[in-house]
């Protein structure tokens, strides 16, 4: 869910996002996508690139006749300011304006608040990058997870850790968000299912800086963990990692997409060997690499994370669903999305079939080697390995 680029050129990007999104004329045969997203506030770093990626897909699709080659796509982009109430109001406005699909912000509260409105109206919806799979239950059958769910990242990391021969895990969680609180626990569950054992679980607070208590606890564990799993991100992750290595703990450190940031690879020796997942790594010659190039060409700046790609993919899923459904009827679209199976998208394959609206999509495993991020593997986890979302 969380990627943390400090700059994000947000202001400049915002204007662009909005301007290029509205050329398509409303026709009978059109598809209106209502983006109730956060272009300002704490969610802007995630929602903005997702919308940017979606805009590229919309442009490409419209150049070829629209979604499914016949439904001209109109993007209605509204800023909800990372605010729960505003999301619920804006979603209603977008529905009143005729939206056929709704895109929601990247965090649970606003996604649920807006989602409940769209659910009542029977309109299919995605969150840009909310990774809590429980939202499908909280909102209802018109809601689809788009980004890699926490359960998927946790399970993928656990599977990989077992493949690496690691058997004792320590989990570091923070209950302050579901992402930092639950993702390591999903890892632990799958890790144990696959024969590993969780030796202990520690808790930290956002911004605590001093991790000596946790590090001392880890150093004194018997048996020593050979892998430490956390979803901490900046500034907590670098602080923790430095203090951990300074204390002489050599266990492998696994993290999730929250540390997919230049900061992590720039930490020097301490970050050597750190493993983390994200939604895709642009390996040379792949479709994702091509998307990264297309993004750079379109926005005249390089792409620094995978949110834009998953935003692009979302539009491809919608386009395919509208082809299958043959129109923009909400229920038909919902069923078509739910039956998506093995669709080729920029990050690999995506399937919603039999996954309870949490997509099976590729997850990249990456390792920091010599101060650079190297791609280890891209895989789609089997659904029977997924833990139940909390």
């Amino acid at each position, binding site marked *: 869910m969380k990627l943390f680029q400090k700059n994000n050129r947000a*202001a400049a990007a915002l*204007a662009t996002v*909005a301007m290029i999104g509205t050329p398509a004329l409303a026709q009978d045969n059109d598809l209106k996508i209502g983006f109730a997203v956060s272009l300002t506030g704490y969610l802007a770093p995630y929602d903005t690139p997702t919308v940017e990626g979606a805009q590229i897909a919309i442009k490409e699709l419209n150049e070829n006749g629209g979604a499914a080659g016949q439904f001209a796509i109109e993007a209605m982009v509204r*800023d909800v300011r990372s*605010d729960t*109430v505003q999301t619920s109001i804006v979603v209603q406005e977008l529905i009143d304006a005729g939206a056929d699909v709704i895109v929601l912000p990247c965090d649970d*509260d606003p996604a649920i608040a807006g989602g*409940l409105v769209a659910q009542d109206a029977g309109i299919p919806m995605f969150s840009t990058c909310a990774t809590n799979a429980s939202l499908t239950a909280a909102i209802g059958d018109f809601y689809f997870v788009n980004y890699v769910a926490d359960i998927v990242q946790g399970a993928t990391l656990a599977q990989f850790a077992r493949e690496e021969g690691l058997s004792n895990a320590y989990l570091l969680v923070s209950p302050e968000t579901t992402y930092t609180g639950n993702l390591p626990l999903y890892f632990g569950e799958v890790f144990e299912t696959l024969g590993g054992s969780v030796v202990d679980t520690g808790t930290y607070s956002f911004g605590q800086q001093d991790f000596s208590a946790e590090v001392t606890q880890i150093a004194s564990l018997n048996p020593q963990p050979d892998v430490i799993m956390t979803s901490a991100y900046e500034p907590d992750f670098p602080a923790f990692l430095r203090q951990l290595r300074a204390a002489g703990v050599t266990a492998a450190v696994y993290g999730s997409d929250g540390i997919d940031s230049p900061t992590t690879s720039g930490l020097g020796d301490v970050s050597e060997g750190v493993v983390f997942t994200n939604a895709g790594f642009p390996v040379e010659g792949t479709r994702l690499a091509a998307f990264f190039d297309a993004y750079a060409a379109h926005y005249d700046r390089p792409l620094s994370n995978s949110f834009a790609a998953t935003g692009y993919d979302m539009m491809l899923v919608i386009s395919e669903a509208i082809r299958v459904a043959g129109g923009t009827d909400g229920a038909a679209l919902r069923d078509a999305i739910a039956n998506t199976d093995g669709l080729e998208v920029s990050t690999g394959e995506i399937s919603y079939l039999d996954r309870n609206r949490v997509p099976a999509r590729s997850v990249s495993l990456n390792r920091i080697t010599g101060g650079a991020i190297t791609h280890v593997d891209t895989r789609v986890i089997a659904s029977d390995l997924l833990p139940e979302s909390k």
Partner: protein
Amino acid sequence: MRGGLVILALLCLGAAGLAAIVGAPAVANTISYFLIVVVLVTGLGIYVGNTGIVSFGHPSFMGIGAYLTAILVMPDARKGALFPNLPDVLAGISLHPLVGLLVAAVFVGLVGLILGMALSRLNGASATIATLGVLIVVHSLMVGGTTFTRGAQAVYGVPKVVTPFYAALAATAVIILANWFKFSKWGLLARAGREDEAAASASGISIFLSRTLAFSVSTFVMALGGGLFALQIGVFSPSEFYFGITFSLLAMLIVGGANSTTGAVSGALLITLLTEVLRRVEPGFELGGISVPALFGLTTIGTSLALIATLYLRPEGLFGASELDDVLPFKKHRVAQTYPASEVTKATEGALAVRNLTKTYGGVTAVSDATLELKRGEILGLIGPNGSGKSTFLSCASGVQRFDRGEVAIGDKTMPQAKPNAFAHAGVGRTFQNIRLFGRLSVEENVAAAMAAVPSNRARQVHEVLARVNLEDLATRTADTLSYGQQRRLEIARALAIDPAFLLLDEPAAGMNDTETAELAGIIASLRNIEGLGILIVDHDLPMILKLSDRIAVLNEGRLIAVETPEEIKRNPEVAQAYFGERRNTGADNQTPEFQPTTVET
């Protein structure tokens, strides 16, 4: 009911009517939320406005209200899934939303009462910092208290039953409640405490109690707003009740004017309108062929500019401390004018006695072993050069300041130290050297606050007390706007409002012209002659002191050097020396020098 209140109520109901006319669900949502914000800002204003203490902690109570309402109202099945660890008592009930809302709000109001007791012992900035602590602690409890919450995870599936009409009813009720509290006895006392703590204590006002009640009432309203929020949006998590909403609500309160209910409502209205306009402009638009590009973030910029503009141009907010009633030609609000007699035990005989009083500041002895009695029915002048200890003596004798040795007694009852409140209740009224009125309160409110705070054995009327100092025609004027002499007289009226046996006047004639001084002297003399008060006057206006006083006490370097009649004082060589630094001895006939009754600038 008064005009202003009717207009505010009509505004709320009119907003709900607008939602009904337009019919679009999005408009209904916007209006419902606006009305809930009115509830919240007004609730915050009940505390911030009446006590003058900025609170960052109030969204905590909104949060507790939201959680409690959700738990009480949600259907059993869903509750079981979301809150598996809930105690059976809570897990099994599913109340009507209105009942759940009120139960939650009353519970939070009681929590607020207890917490208010702790908070109200702090003043100014320390109280504000403490509310910040409340915000952070409650947020941590919400995240950590997973028996009653879902930790950081969202609570969802709260029945969305709030319509614009219900929200309008709630907002109207809260506006009426806020207005009622503001002008109630406790609201009046809290506002007096806000204006001047020292003067409020000396007028017998328990700042602690009034603040605690204001806190409790405002937390009740915040919980109501929180519950409505939950029943309107249907989903929330602890992050909804943290810094974000704290600053939004405070911004609205500051823009509108924290010290008035009208201000709170207008702040909410103004910021909401501004936001609604700006967010429609944000995505860019075409106007007469000109294409205006998108500029997201405009709403935030707009509200920030509104806040800055307010702080620059109208630091007190749009409405300041005034209500709609004050600017409308309808009937003005008046405080209760009559205060009935009640059973109180006060010493009815005996003097205000200061015995062997010694007070030192570090190594400096300000008052040394001073013994002085103020009898009922006498005017006692207290004079002495600058720095002789007059003000210190008065502060100790009126219970404002602690002292090192000695005692102060009223009749046969020894008074506690540094408890000005207790002195007021025992019948000691006082004024201050530098005027300390409840500046933004009306003239009659200044008097009524003291009257309401200190019960008396006899019935009192506000206008009677004002008439005593010739201010009855100015009853509804704001105290700040009075002339200097009028302010001095109002201070005396406020001291008289507690039905005192003793009156301590600290330089009552300072800065007055001759006419004003003469008028004042007449008033003071009548208080002794008609009311039989014992009056202690500290002043530099020697002609007035000599003319008025039955006895005069002279302090020099902290010691009482004489307590005599004015005639004796005039001839006392030691007094002359204290004032002029030398004996005016002509030498030849060794005649006692006569003290010159002129105003001495010291």
